[in-house]
C-alpha cells in the first residue's frame, strides 16, 4: 500500500474537488441541454408514494412499510425526499443490497471451482465498505491488487475466506481472465474478443490484451500465436494507456500498480465512467452504453452528460453515496415510468425495471416471513445476469408457475400475519387499502377498491376470497417491478 501512495503522488491528479460543485440541478440542466427538443416530451414527476417505493427498492431492496408510507405522505417538510435518501444511505440494508449486486457482477459468469471461492465473504466485506462509505477507488484497488496465497496444509484453502481475495479467485488467478474481467467490470469495456483476434469494432488489438494479461502474470508471460496456439512469444506488460511498470518489479507490486493506473491516471476516464454508468443503469433503467460491453466510444449516448458526472465523481473522491444522492435527487430519476422503444427517448422517463432476484425474495418474505427454501428457489428461478441491460432481460414460465402455485408459498400466505390482519378488518374498502399498502406499497385507486370489494362480495367464503386478493397482487407485474 505504500507503493500505492507513491504512485498516487506521481500521478497528476488535480484534486480540485473542493472548488467544484455539481448538483442534481446541474445534472438536470446538462441533460436538458443534451436532450434539446426532446426534453419537452419528458414524463411528469412522480408522487410521494411512488417515490418512496422506488427509492427504497433501489437503495435497500426492501419495500417501505405502510406506517412509513403514511408518515412520509403526512410530512410537510419540503426537503423530505432528499432527507429520505440520506436516511436510506445510512442503513445496513443499503450496504447489503449493493454488496450483493457487485458480488453477483463478479461471480455471475465465473467458472471457478465453488470450493475455492467464497462469494459470501466478498459480499460481507463489500457490505462493510459500502456502509462505511469507502471510496470506489479504494474498493477496486483492494480487489485487483489482492494476492491470495494457497495454504497447502488445509484442503481447498486458497485464501477465499478473506473477502477482497475473491475477485482474483473468481478469475481463477488466470492472467487472461483477470485482464478481461478488470476491463469489463472496472472500465466497462469488453476486450475479451481481443484474446483470440483483434476486436472487430474498436481499437483493442490482440497485442494490447496480452500486454494487459502480462501485467497480471507472476513471471514471464507468453502470448500464443493466432494460427498455432502451441507457438508462443514473450510479451512485456503494458497497461491499456501505455503505462509500463518498472522492470524487475515483483508481481504483487505489479498488481498494485495496475490498480493505481486504473484508478489514478486521469486519462483513464473509463474507470469513473464505468461505475457511474452501472449505477445510472440500475437507477434509471437504461445506461449511456451497455454496462460491460462498450466498443468504440462512439457508442456512448449523451456522452457529455456521463463524462461530466464521471469527472465530478472523481473530484468527489469516488464517493458512492455522493453519486446516489446526485442521481436520486435529480428530476431524471424522479420522473414517471414509461416504456421506451427508441434511443431518442432515453432518459425522458424511468424504465419500469424487473426487480433483482434477491429483491423479489425480499418482497415475498415481507408478506410471508422468512422461509429459507423459498428464498433459494426464488433466487434460482428469478436469476438474472446483473450486467445485462433491462431491455435485454426476459421473464419465464417457471417464474409465473412459482408465484402462482409454489406450495410452501401458498401455505405461508394462508397462514400469514397479513391475512389475519386483513380478516380482522370489517370494512371492505379499508381491507383493500391495507392490502395494497402492504403488497404494492401504495393506496388503491377508487376503481381498484370497487373491483376488489365486489370480488369479496361475490365470494362464498371470505377467507378464501382474502387469499385470492393477496394471490392476485402477488402475481401482478407491478409486484416484481420497480415503477
Amino acid at each position, binding site marked *: 500500500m505504500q507503493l500505492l501512495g507513491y504512485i498516487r503522488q506521481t500521478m497528476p491528479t488535480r484534486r480540485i474537488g473542493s472548488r467544484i460543485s455539481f448538483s442534481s440541478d446541474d445534472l438536470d440542466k446538462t441533460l436538458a441541454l443534451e436532450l434539446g427538443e426532446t426534453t419537452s416530451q419528458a414524463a411528469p414527476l412522480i408522487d410521494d408514494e411512488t417515490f418512496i417505493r422506488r427509492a427504497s427498492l433501489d437503495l435497500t431492496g426492501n419495500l417501505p412499510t405502510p406506517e412509513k408510507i403514511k408518515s412520509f405522505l403526512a410530512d410537510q417538510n419540503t426537503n423530505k425526499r432528499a432527507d429520505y435518501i440520506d436516511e436510506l444511505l445510512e442503513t445496513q440494508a443499503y450496504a447489503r443490497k449493493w454488496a450483493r449486486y457487485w458480488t453477483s457482477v463478479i461471480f455471475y459468469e465465473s467458472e471457478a471451482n465453488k470450493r475455492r471461492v467464497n462469494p459470501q465473504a466478498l459480499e460481507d466485506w463489500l457490505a462493510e465498505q459500502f456502509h462505511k462509505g469507502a471510496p470506489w477507488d479504494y474498493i477496486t484497488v483492494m480487489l485487483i491488487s489482492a494476492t491470495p496465497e494457497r495454504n497447502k496444509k488445509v484442503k481447498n484453502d486458497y485464501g477465499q475466506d478473506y473477502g477482497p481475495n475473491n475477485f482474483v479467485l473468481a478469475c481463477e488467478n488466470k492472467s487472461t481472465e483477470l485482464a478481461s474481467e478488470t476491463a469489463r467490470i472496472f472500465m466497462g469495456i469488453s476486450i475479451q474478443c481481443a484474446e483470440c483476434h483483434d476486436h472487430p469494432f474498436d481499437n483493442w488489438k490482440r497485442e494490447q490484451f496480452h500486454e494487459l494479461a502480462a501485467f497480471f502474470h507472476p513471471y514471464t508471460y507468453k502470448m500464443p500465436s493466432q494460427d498455432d496456439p502451441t507457438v508462443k512469444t514473450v510479451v512485456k506488460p503494458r497497461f491499456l494507456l501505455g503505462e509500463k511498470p518498472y522492470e524487475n518489479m515483483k508481481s504483487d507490486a505489479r498488481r498494485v500498480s495496475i490498480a493505481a493506473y486504473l484508478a489514478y491516471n486521469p486519462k483513464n476516464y473509463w474507470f469513473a465512467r464505468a461505475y457511474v454508468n452501472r449505477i445510472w443503469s440500475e437507477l434509471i433503467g437504461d445506461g449511456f452504453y451497455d454496462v460491460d460491453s462498450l466498443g468504440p466510444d462512439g457508442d456512448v449516448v449523451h456522452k457529455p452528460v456521463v463524462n461530466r458526472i464521471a469527472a465530478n465523481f472523481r473530484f468527489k473522491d469516488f464517493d458512492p453515496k455522493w453519486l446516489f444522492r446526485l442521481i436520486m435527487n435529480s428530476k431524471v430519476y424522479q420522473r*414517471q415510468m414509461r416504456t421506451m422503444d427508441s434511443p431518442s427517448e432515453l432518459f425522458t422517463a424511468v424504465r419500469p425495471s424487473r426487480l433483482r432476484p434477491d429483491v423479489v425474495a425480499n418482497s415475498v418474505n415481507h408478506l410471508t416471513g422468512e422461509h429459507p427454501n423459498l428464498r433459494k428457489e426464488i433466487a434460482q428461478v428469478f436469476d438474472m445476469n446483473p450486467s445485462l441491460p433491462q431491455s435485454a432481460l426476459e421473464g419465464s*414460465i417457471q417464474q409465473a408457475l412459482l408465484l402462482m402455485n409454489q406450495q410452501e408459498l401458498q401455505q405461508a400466505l394462508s397462514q400469514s400475519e397479513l391475512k389475519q390482519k386483513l380478516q380482522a378488518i370489517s370494512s371492505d374498502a379499508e381491507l383493500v387499502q391495507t392490502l395494497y399498502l402492504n403488497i404494492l406499497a401504495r393506496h388503491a*385507486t377508487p376503481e*381498484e377498491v370497487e*373491483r376488489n370489494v365486489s370480488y369479496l362480495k361475490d365470494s362464498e367464503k371470505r377467507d378464501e376470497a382474502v387469499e385470492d386478493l393477496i394471490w392476485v397482487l402477488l402475481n401482478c407485474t407491478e409486484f416484481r*417491478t420497480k415503477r
Partner: protein
Amino acid sequence: MYNEALLHLNLTRRSQFTRRNFLQAAALGVAGSPLLSQIQLNAAEMKKQGRACILLWLAGAPSQMETWDPKPGTPNGGETKKIQTQTPGIEIAHYWPKIASVMNDIAVVRSMTGKEAAHERGTYHLHTGHRMLGIEKFPHFGSVVARELGDPNSDIPNFVSIGQTLSSGFLGVQVAPFIIDRPGQLPDNVTSTASATRQRRRLALLSQQESDFAQAGAAALVKEQSKLYQKASLMMTSPRLKAFEFDGESEDVQTAYGKNQLGQGLLVARRLVEAGVPFVEVRSTGWDMHNSIFRNMERRAPDVDQGLSQLLTDLKQRGLLDKTLVLCMGEFGRTPKINARPPVPGRDHWVRNFNLLMAGAGIKGGQVIGKTDDNGQEITDNPVQVEDLFQSMCKAMGINADMELHTPIGRPVRLVDGGAVIKGLFG
C-alpha cells in the same frame, strides 16, 4: 374472432391443423369456408407436420480423435483405439461400441471447421448459426423451430431443454426454451392449489390489475407477463404434461436408455417429440478435457453411447426417425497435439477441424462426410462451415434458411447467413 386469426396463421405458416383446431373452427362456423381450400394449398407445408429435432449437446467440446475420427498409431493418436462399425469401412473410437452398432442410421461429419475457440462463443455459434459479434442476441435454433413448426396455442412449450441452454434471443419469450433439470418428473409448481372455478376468478381479477399497470407505462412488461401467465395456465391443465414423466414406460425401456441423468433425459426427449414438441435439447456436461483425457473418456462416453444408440433404435422402431433430426455435437474440437499438462495430459481447444453426428429426417445414414489428414490437423476433403451445417439443419426441418428475421431495432437479418446444404448428406 381472435381464434380465427390464429387458426389462419396456423394453416398458412405452421400447418398445424390439429383436430382440436378443426373443432374450434367448426364451432366458429368457419369450417367449409375458404379455410378448407387453404388446406389443399398447403400440401407442401403439411409435410412438415410432425417434424422434430433432438439436439444432444456435449458441453465443453468433445475431442474429434476420441469420438468419430480416431488416429491410433500416429504421434497425435494417444491411447485411443479404433473399432469397426455396423457400416463396413467406417471406424470410430473404441469408447463407442453401441454407437458402432447403429452406424447405418448415422452420417458422420469429420470436416467441420469453426471460428470460435472459447466455450461461450463457440456454444453461441453452434446454437444460433451466428457468431457473437454485434449487440443482437440471435435465437437458439430451437426457438426458430418452435416458431416455425410449433403450434402457437400449444398447451406445453414448443421447445424444451433438459439442462441450461441459450435463450430465444430477439424472438422473445413466446418461443423461449422451457428448462427442466430433473428428467422423468413433472416440472415444478404445475399443480394449482385452487379449484378450477376459483382459479378462473383469480385470473380474471389479475388481468384487470394488469391492464391498469400497462396503462401506467409498463405496457411491454405486462404484455410479456400475460403471455407467460397464459402459457403457464395452459400448461397446468395440459393432458400432455404426462410426457415429462415415465408413466407407461416399462422398466426395461428406462434401463435401455441408461438409468442416469443423460439417458433419462433422452427418454424424456423421445416422449416429448411423440407428444408433438418440435425441439428438445439434452445436455451432457464434462467434455472439456484439458487433463487426463483418456481416463475421462472412459468415464464420460458410456452414458452417451448407451443413451444415444438407444434413442436412434427407439425412434426407428416407432417410425419417428424419418421425421426427427438427431444431432450430437459440442462447441468445437480439441487439439490433435496432446498437451503437456501436469499431472496427466489432455487436449486443448481447437476449431480448425472437429466432427459431429447427424441422423434422421431424410439424412442418409452409414456415411462419412469429409476427411482429415493423418495427424488430424488439416481437412483434406469437403470442409463444412457452421453455416453449411445450419443450411442442412433447416433443410431437414423443412425451414427456409434464407428467411428474414427482424431484430428489435427492425434490422432484417437472414436466418442463416450464406453457406449451402452439405453435399451428399441427404443421399
